[in-house]
């Protein structure tokens, strides 16, 4: 019994040490405001930057930020170039087969359409709709029967509507909201699509310890209301 206890203690201490000595590298896209973007100083900023730094502080980890192209963001996590993804990535069963997710840190954010002003009566089932490659929205449009045009970055999907290449863009509502609020030529449709299971942090399936550490940190932020305050500050969907 004593040896079992001692053994457990060593394992626990070892696990703690393995986590504490490491710098955790957080991968993000840096092109999806308000979730993550590059600010004027050239640094990663946004809701996920603030949230990630707070989660690392609570889990007593040292974290650094890395930007990576959206297309290869999962392969580079799996091959170990960074340790976690915080890139506005919705939790889906397909992604969950390759990587693991923490609990969601946003409520499922409805997806919305943005069209040119004067084009609000468009038939979305027969329209050309822009979405970012490899997102839940692209998946949704592909199955809806509308014509899908895919772009590598979120910014290009909006630009495609402006220059007439697509009739509408489908993306997370909190990403499109600031674009629509800017006034000008783009308006948001009332219709929304409820897809995705909220956004979570993505980790390697073999990294159960790190996942548990972040999961606990997210739970503590949910419990003390600080996560809700952040969601309101950055105007991201509903609170918990």
């Amino acid at each position, binding site marked *: 019994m004593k040896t079992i206890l001692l053994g457990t203690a060593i394992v626990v201490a070892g696990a703690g040490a393995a986590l504490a000595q490491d710098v955790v590298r957080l991968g993000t896209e840096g092109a999806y405001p308000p979730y993550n973007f*590059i600010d004027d100083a050239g640094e990663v900023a946004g809701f996920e930057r603030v949230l990630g730094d707070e989660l690392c502080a609570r889990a007593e980890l040292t974290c650094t930020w890395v930007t990576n192209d959206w297309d290869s963001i999962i392969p580079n996590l799996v*091959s170990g170039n960074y340790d976690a993804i915080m890139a506005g990535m919705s939790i889906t069963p397909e992604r969950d087969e390759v990587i693991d997710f923490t609990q969601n840190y946003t409520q499922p954010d409805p997806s919305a359409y943005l069209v040119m002003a004067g084009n609000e009566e468009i038939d979305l089932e027969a329209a050309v709709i822009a979405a970012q490659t490899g997102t839940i929205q692209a998946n949704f449009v592909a199955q809806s029967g509308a014509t899908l045009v895919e772009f590598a970055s979120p910014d290009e999907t909006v630009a495609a509507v402006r220059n007439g290449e697509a009739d509408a863009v489908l993306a997370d509502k909190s990403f499109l909201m*600031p674009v629509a609020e800017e006034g000008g030529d783009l308006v948001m449709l009332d219709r929304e699509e409820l897809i995705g299971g909220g956004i979570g942090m993505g980790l390697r399936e073999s990294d159960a310890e790190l996942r548990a550490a972040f999961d606990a940190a997210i739970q503590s932020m949910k419990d003390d209301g600080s996560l809700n305050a952040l969601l309101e500050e950055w105007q991201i969907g509903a609170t918990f």
Partner: protein
Amino acid sequence: MFAFCTDPETLSGLSWLSCYLTTGKHLSIYVSVGTVLLLLAITAPAALLFGFGGAVAARSPLPPLAWAGRGYIAIVRGVPDIAFFLFFVIALDQFLEWLRHEWKCPDWEGSVWQGSDFVVCAEAKLPLSTAAGWVHDVYGFAVAVLTFAIVFGAFAANVLYGAMRAVPRAQLETAEAYGMTRRQIFRRILVPQMWVYALPGLSNLWMVLVKATPLLFLLGVEDIVYWARELGGAKTPRFTDYPHPDWRVWYFGALLVFYLAFTRLSEVVLARLTRRLARGQATLGGAAQGGSA
């Protein structure tokens, strides 16, 4: 950057532009111009070295060496650049980490492959995850240089292989008649004379290399095209002090000018080099210069 930049909303015209163009983000694109030039400066000689090695190996009378040289040329030339960049770099990185893993963590239990995950012990990471940001940048850059050198080395090897065969047989026979050894013929006759035949092919390669640098972003190095896209995209006032509509056309226009100027400069230098190398050669170009051939 400047003192008057503290409140960009009150600025307009040139003073706004001078503040806008000196934000930390814009400094990154200026740095990336340097990165691209540095990459070219290191990659070109490295690729030439790979090419020279490949060509010499392919001409070798020893069958295994000749097979290795020809295999290198055939395989790397035959694989699409993007596939090579995506596959080879990840494979190379994992191979190096695996070697370090075997060396530093012999007690590690279980495989480095866990499902689809590639996991090595923390001490074997390349670079260590505790390393400073610039170490990661330098490592990424070094991997990029190596990959570019291998890819363009294969093409250069083929060009040099052809150039070595183009040197007139009579030149080599004369050298033999003088009693030179194979090694001496290679060093004194073949190599000095082959450059003039190799230069048109090599200059093509250089031009392609100059334009291939945007592939850098595939390797995680933030190059000028990445920054042009990032800076040019429409910016909403909520997330920046310098909101603007879609300005990508201006940024890509600037890139166009940069690349055209750079390739033009390259053409001038290469034309000069061609004239210099043709001097005294048994070619039309050499004869036109009034050489003794």
